[in-house]
């Protein structure tokens, strides 16, 4: 599987992640499905609903925000294809907490922010047995393919 990212999307993610540091930033990836691959066309930042202390190591998106995001995606002819979040001062590798809360099918894009600067991105997908994440290849999407 490949996660294709629209031009400029990573720049938005970097800005958002660095602004939120040392707290975790999170949100949704809106886009389309291309066979086994996903195209992330829009970044939809969503407030982290954990309290200020927990936000340094956890994020949560309120279910009512999900209802609104689903409606927004549907109105634009898109799907929610994945989730992004930052790992402040940690590598972009899923934690046990990420595994516990992971949904199947979604792509999880994790961005590592070290000392306030984004240093790496990696993407993952939960396997069907819910036992582990498989890494997903990241790729840029040519400008002409973005609506």
């Amino acid at each position, binding site marked *: 599987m490949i996660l294709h990212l629209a031009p400029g999307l990573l720049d938005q993610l970097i800005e958002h992640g660095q602004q939120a540091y040392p707290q*975790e930033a999170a949100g949704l990836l809106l886009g389309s499905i291309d066979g086994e691959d996903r195209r992330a066309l829009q970044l939809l930042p969503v407030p982290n609903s954990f309290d200020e202390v927990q936000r340094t190591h956890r*994020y*949560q998106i309120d*279910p009512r925000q*999900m209802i609104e995001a689903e409606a927004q995606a549907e109105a634009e002819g898109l799907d929610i*294809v994945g*989730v992004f979040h930052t790992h402040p001062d940690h590598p972009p590798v899923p934690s046990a907490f990420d595994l516990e809360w992971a*949904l199947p099918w*979604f792509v999880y894009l994790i961005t590592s922010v070290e000392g306030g600067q984004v240093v790496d991105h990696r993407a993952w997908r939960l396997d069907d047995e*819910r036992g582990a994440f498989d890494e997903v290849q990241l790729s840029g999407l040519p400008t002409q393919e973005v609506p």
Partner: protein
Amino acid sequence: MSSIRVPTPLRPYAGGNKDIPVEADTVGQALQQLTETYPALQAHLYDDAGNLRPYVNLFVNDEDVRHLQGGDTPLASDDRLTIVPSIAGGTA
């Protein structure tokens, strides 16, 4: 007949369906019918002990069933039961 709205990440385990009609009197019966029809959903909705996974939220129309009667919440024929995932994660 009431219906269940399945969120995008669970649709591949529900025959690709977004809205699934059910004949059920309560939320609990509707979920049971759903997992009997689509057994692949079981592991993603329930843990090994048979409890709903922490990310599973259930709304009848616009009301969270936690504020109603949970699994015993009655379903009328024109009600929609929506499965809404909570999204969470983090470094620890």
